């Protein structure tokens, strides 16, 4: 089903209403629902959090927009609640963390493949391999400290093996900024991709900063501290991709379009019928928000939103295993580094970043220590090598 964003006005803002009971629905099943249901829930929570964050900043700089921003934020606050409360309470913070990294890996890999601008794609590939490594470190932590298997969450969609080592992901701030796209020439999907990744990485950062101190084990506390620092770098990276010359209203419209796009993608693929209805409902809510922003754009900038927005939505996000692409990218780019705003080879690494990471790692690296000698095996590293059923596995390749 194609969605005509110019004609479809969705649900009117004053009809976007909730009750407390409605906000707190029965969660998905950690055991029975597809891993990508968890991925979508985590992603959309992050998208709504970004939307609220943006609108608060926008309100601070634009007094004439404060009322409509506050009205839309009220709906989005409750959308975020309904989505985030779908996470089940038997899912521990570390298990949820595994879900966060699966979002980062599978989503970034899809977006990178769908990104027409080679530089932006390069940046996404760069971030992808770092989040990929985080998964391996957290899986080791889960196995070694809690005696649990990360794959019960991942459901075999996502590999658990080293990426670009977390210990070398630490960079000087100057090496985290990237070159922004140009708003006049960038394709709409590039703009959407940038803001999706900012949303996902920011919520990951915020989540690690919230749950990190709840862990008792010192290695767990250190690992969250270390990876949260990388997530902050990733926010810096992806944030810098958007053109700072875009007006507030241009950014706002693109943000609402992104929400329509992501909810629409979720609704298209959701396997849990109850949750699918939530995604469908929120596609309509976001269309409502988009049209409020479009009307304000016409009113305050005297321009046609079609100058900024595409005529139709891009191909929906494919929520599926991107294993092949991730492995190929890993094989080709694991040694890449950043120097200034460019992604470079190992030999061209930044001296600023080398000095910074040597300083941070000088008392040891939590991410190295937690995974020392670690190879994921079905169930646990304590199990004998094999496929978990007492048989040996064949060699696998990309």
């Amino acid at each position, binding site marked *: 089903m194609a969605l005509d964003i110019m004609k479809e006005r969705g649900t009117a803002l004053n009809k976007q209403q909730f009750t407390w009971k409605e906000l707190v629905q029965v969660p998905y*099943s950690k055991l029975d629902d597809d891993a990508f249901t968890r991925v979508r829930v985590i992603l959309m929570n992050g998208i709504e959090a970004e939307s609220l964050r943006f609108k608060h900043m926008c309100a601070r700089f634009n007094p004439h927009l404060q009322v409509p921003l506050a009205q839309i934020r009220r709906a989005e606050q409750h959308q975020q609640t309904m989505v985030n409360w779908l996470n089940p309470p038997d899912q521990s913070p570390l298990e949820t963390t595994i879900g966060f990294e699966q979002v980062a890996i599978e989503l970034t890999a899809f977006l990178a493949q769908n990104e027409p601008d080679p530089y932006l794609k390069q940046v996404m590939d760069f971030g992808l391999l770092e989040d990929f490594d985080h998964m391996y470190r957290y899986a080791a932590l889960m196995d070694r400290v809690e005696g649990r298997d990360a*794959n019960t969450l991942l459901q075999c969609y996502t590999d658990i093996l080293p990426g670009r080592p977390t210990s070398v992901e630490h960079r000087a701030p100057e090496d985290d900024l990237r070159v922004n796209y140009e708003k006049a020439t960038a394709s709409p999907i590039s703009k959407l991709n940038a803001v999706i990744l900012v949303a996902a990485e920011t919520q990951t950062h915020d989540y690690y900063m919230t749950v990190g101190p709840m862990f*008792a084990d010192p290695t767990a506390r250190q690992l969250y501290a270390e990876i949260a620092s990388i997530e902050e770098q990733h926010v810096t990276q992806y944030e810098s991709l958007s053109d700072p010359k875009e007006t507030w209203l241009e950014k706002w419209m693109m943000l609402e379009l992104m929400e329509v796009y992501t909810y629409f993608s979720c609704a298209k693929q959701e396997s849990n019928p109850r949750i699918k209805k939530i995604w469908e409902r929120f596609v309509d809510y976001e269309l409502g928000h988009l049209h409020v922003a479009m009307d304000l754009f016409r009113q305050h900038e005297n321009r046609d939103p079609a100058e900024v927005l595409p005529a139709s939505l891009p191909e929906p996000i494919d929520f599926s295993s991107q294993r092949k692409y991730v492995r190929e990218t890993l094989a080709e780019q694991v040694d890449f580094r950043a120097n200034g705003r460019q992604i470079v080879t190992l030999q061209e690494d930044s001296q600023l970043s080398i000095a910074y990471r040597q300083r941070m790692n000088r008392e040891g690296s939590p991410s190295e220590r937690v995974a020392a000698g670690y190879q994921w095996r079905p169930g646990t590293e304590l199990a*004998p090598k094999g496929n978990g059923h007492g048989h040996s596995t064949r060699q696998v390749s990309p």
Partner: protein
Amino acid sequence: MMKNQVEIGKNRTGIALSPIDSQLLIQGAEAAPPSMPGNESAINEARTAYAADGAPIGTMPPPVTIRGIAVGLVDAAKGKNANVFLDKLGERLAFERTGTRLYDAVLSKFDASEPLPAGPARAELEQIKAEEAVHFEMLREVMVSMGGDPTALTPSADVAAVNSMGLLQVLGDPRMNLKQSLEAILVAELVDNDGWETLIELARTEANASVVRRFEQALAEEQVHLSNVRRWVRAATVQREGSATAR
């Protein structure tokens, strides 16, 4: 060196340290009527209402092997019991796997702590850890032989993991001493002993005699774990309290 005794310090949590403020606090609370009539039953009603939706935390995975499918198809009643058995088998398996890691944590507490006069010795903890790992591996083999998937998180295993969250928090926290950590281990061993007894009862109808014998052997070892841990905890507690009184 981590100490095992609790000392007197600046604990601020009770009201006795704030004689003036506590009176104001009490008087203020007593003077203000509740915002609405009623009692805690409203919270219970919410639990009941959500439970009425009937959504479980999850289900058992379908059988992996032909043997597992056959058990399910040939005899519905037996299939149902087999399901219960595999669920509890998955619980024990997950518990022993986590148990191995719990003893890793106790060993690190042991290394950081002043020794407890009545034990444990390091070798005793190492032996228990090794036995937990052997039990895990044995359960894994039995699960495979019964047509189950030893990597699947069964509903009972999930509940047990939620139960164990507090134990992980105690054992992981470097501020909680060896004695306090052994108290957490005591909870684990008590639950584990009960779990093995139930599993053996199920195994008598759902598994062959050799499986029952292996389980009985594991229970015998777990009983020794429990009695040892219980003895260490009591000795550490009573001895400390006794010496404090003597002083």
